[in-house]
């Protein structure tokens, strides 16, 4: 994977988030819904991501992932 490809993919993910995040479903997910229906949902806060945290997280996770890859590379026997 060339540097140009990586920058392109990250940019693509960010654009995707920018477009799709406002349209992401606000409904509870499968587990939350079951917890609601079966009456064990004690007031859990829904995280509610903002676009800012999404973009920040995407770049952060890229760095963490590469960092882990480099760590593994150093540990390679």
């Amino acid at each position: 994977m060339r540097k140009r490809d990586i920058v392109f993919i990250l940019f693509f993910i960010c654009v995707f988030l920018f477009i799709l995040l406002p349209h992401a479903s606000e409904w509870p997910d499968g587990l939350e819904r079951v917890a609601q229906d079966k009456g064990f949902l004690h007031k859990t806060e829904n995280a509610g991501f903002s676009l800012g945290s999404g973009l920040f997280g995407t770049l952060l996770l890229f760095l963490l992932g590469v960092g882990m890859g480099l760590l593994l590379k150093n540990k390679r026997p």
Partner: protein
Amino acid sequence: MHIPDGFLSASVVLSTCAVSFGVLGFCLKKAATRLKDRMVPLMGVMSAFIFAAQMLNFPVVSGTSGHLIGAVLAAVLLGPFGAVLVVSVVLIAQCLIFQDGGVTALGANILNMAVLGCLSGYFVYKAALWRKTHGCILFGVALASWISVEASALAASLELAFSGIVPLGMVLPAMIGIHALIGIGEAILTCLVISFILKVRPDLMYSDS
């Protein structure tokens, strides 16, 4: 399917943590022996992609949504051990930085989505791969994606039931039922990404050799 704080009993918290972090240590060792140089940037890209994709909830039935877990997507590209690590990093960051998923439930969430999701998914994918045609690969990916979501839902149900928060007979059918639908979404999204990769960069697919 991120379990929040307050759902799990102390014994379930401790036992899931012990299993998860034990498996993570094993995966770190195994992944290091199988790592190829080209996988280093791919681990970063996959972490970023799965994090972003997990934010995008799609509606499944009225009043319920689901999101991609990405376990099979990661496993098909990074192998089972690298995938467990990547999905775990995403879950750890979500939990500690973005308050998605409980801190006490982190072990359980890693066990359900990363460990069981990736390993069960990769096993099914390999078992379904009797020919290396694109159609066969995509069938394996779809089946593996659906089963990985159901495996995670099954494990989450067991953890909730063992915690004494809800009887198993009540939570299991509900979780398996709703995640059968969410699993279809997972299968479709994973197939879309993999079919794109098969077209443009088939060399990125993981192989044991």
